[in-house]
């Protein structure tokens, strides 16, 4: 087969002679004779999918993606784009990494195992918690798995997880789907000027609470000021404190361990992935005492026959392929390659680069909010808090109208209320901040 042909798989290398010889050895006339599919359920192969050449598909999809409007995005709310240095692509696309499978034969896959071990270590450093797995799908599924963990280790005390009123609806929906199977309840606590209302948490928490979830930064970009209190309330009520964050925020904001977090979840794909239509990399870190309740894969250190350090997947009896219906989770395929990208990006930034990126997320948000606030017809930030990357803008005019006009000017922002927009700034769009401010001015009616 050649790459020009279209009448077979270009990725099946058999020559006609080779195929004939193999069939001959097997004593059959044709490949179809090897199939044991009864006639009443056999299919004739006519799917109606035309084969295209590589070049044709590239043209087709390039045209199709060209139908996305070219907008400068100032969007966040759980999916953030930071500049991804070229080295991330070049190294992560090395086929030895990209086209490798899960490390079930560790002797021959030491490289990827070390990558994942280093990724786990970076999360341990950033969270202060001693155990981090080598990935979950995304922040939403991490939160869901953390809630299930809380239910397993605190099942004697109850079955309710407390979450902020301001929680992405998608994240909440994922959580509902995961906890329904064990009959857990979800209750919400109110926010007070963007941050968690301690008073309200106090009033909703109870014997039945197995976990309290808080985010830092919050969905509306504010930085929490009372995390230690939330941790203390959780522990007074024999509940776990689950803290949601992201890799960049973790480098600057209060260390989860120092505020009593029992599980840290959130998004690590903020580094290494860039804007990818919502694709993510779920963080999952926890304390030693919950080690055997951790979902997903863990890479650990051991020794080989020469007594050298070697890495291997470990504690696999937690996982579905051994424990079946009693596994901690059904997760199997995870986001390993994204973890590789995130680790490379983190290493490339180093501690100074990472903290600078985080500090810029605070100062850029403050500065952009202040510029927009100066324009009459807008108030920003709405909440009197410190912000990380994003903030809410109050608009005199209906927010949808403003957003739509901004779109016409080439900018995309979130509409989060009848008179509220949300704006997110990172190193990717900071160059266009002044233009966004000008557009805000332009579209004001």
């Amino acid at each position, binding site marked *: 087969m050649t790459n020009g042909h279209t009448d077979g798989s270009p990725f099946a290398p058999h020559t006609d002679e080779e195929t004939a010889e193999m069939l001959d050895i097997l004593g059959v006339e044709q490949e179809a004779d090897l199939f044991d599919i009864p006639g009443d359920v056999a299919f004739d192969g006519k799917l109606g999918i035309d084969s295209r050449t590589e070049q044709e598909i590239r043209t087709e999809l390039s045209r199709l993606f060209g139908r996305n409007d070219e907008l400068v995005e100032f969007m966040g709310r759980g999916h953030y784009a930071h500049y991804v240095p070229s080295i991330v692509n070049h190294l992560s696309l090395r086929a030895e990494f990209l086209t490798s499978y899960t490390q079930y034969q560790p002797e021959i896959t030491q490289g990827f195992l070390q990558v994942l071990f280093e990724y786990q270590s970076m999360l341990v450093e950033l969270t202060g918690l001693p155990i981090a797995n080598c990935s979950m799908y995304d922040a939403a599924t991490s939160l869901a798995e953390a809630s299930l963990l809380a239910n397993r280790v605190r099942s004697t005390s109850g079955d309710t997880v407390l979450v902020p009123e301001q929680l992405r609806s998608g994240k909440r929906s994922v959580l509902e789907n995961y906890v329904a199977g064990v009959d857990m309840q979800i209750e919400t606590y109110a926010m007070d000027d963007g941050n968690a209302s301690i008073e309200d948490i106090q009033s909703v928490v109870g014997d039945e609470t197995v976990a309290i979830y808080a985010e830092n930064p919050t969905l509306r970009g504010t930085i929490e000021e009372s995390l230690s209190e939330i941790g203390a309330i959780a522990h007074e009520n024999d509940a776990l404190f689950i803290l949601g964050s992201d890799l960049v925020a973790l480098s600057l904001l209060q260390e989860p361990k120092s505020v009593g977090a029992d599980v840290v979840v959130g998004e690590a794909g903020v580094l290494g992935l860039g804007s990818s239509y919502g694709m993510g990399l779920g963080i999952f870190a926890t304390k030693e005492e919950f080690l*055997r309740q951790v979902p997903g894969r863990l890479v650990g250190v051991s020794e080989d026959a020469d007594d050298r350090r070697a890495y291997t997947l470990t504690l*696999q*009896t937690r996982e579905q392929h*051994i*424990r079946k219906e*009693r596994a901690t989770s059904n997760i199997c395929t995870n986001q390993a390659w994204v973890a590789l990208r995130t680790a490379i990006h983190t290493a490339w930034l180093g501690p100074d680069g990472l903290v600078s990126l985080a500090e810029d997320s605070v100062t850029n948000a403050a500065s952009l909010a202040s510029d927009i606030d100066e324009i009459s017809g807008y108030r920003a930030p709405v909440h009197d808090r410190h912000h990380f990357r994003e903030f809410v803008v109050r608009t005199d005019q209906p927010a949808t109208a403003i957003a739509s006009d901004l779109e016409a000017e080439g900018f995309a922002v979130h509409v989060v209320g009848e008179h509220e927009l949300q704006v997110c700034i990172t190193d990717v769009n900071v160059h266009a901040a002044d233009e966004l401010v000008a557009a805000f001015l332009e579209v004001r009616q």
Partner: protein
Amino acid sequence: MSFDVPEDRNYLESHEWTTLEEDTVTVGITDFAQDELGDVVFVELPSEGDTVTAGDTFGVIESIKAVSDLYAPVSGEVTAVNEALFDQPELVNDDPFGDGWMLKINVSDDDTSDSLLTAAEYADQIA
């Protein structure tokens, strides 16, 4: 392959062994069980003072490739736990009937356990 089945104790179908001295029952798992499990890496046991119930699980044993519940042969209060297993779970492999013991249970009056196997009966079961 043949496995040790010492005559001086009783057995459960679920591969635990027991010895009785006065009111105290010592519990572990058999040579056959440790071989089936392979390298034992973790043992989860109750604490001293906890009560266990005959026929119910009292802990979990984990090897590289499997995880199994441990079943109590009698009901009663746990009077001793082999804490050495927490750091050296391999004792279960190395010496299942000796240093690999797990619990000592003070048999309660309302103990309802019966039908423990003799060594001969257990040897038949694993034959």
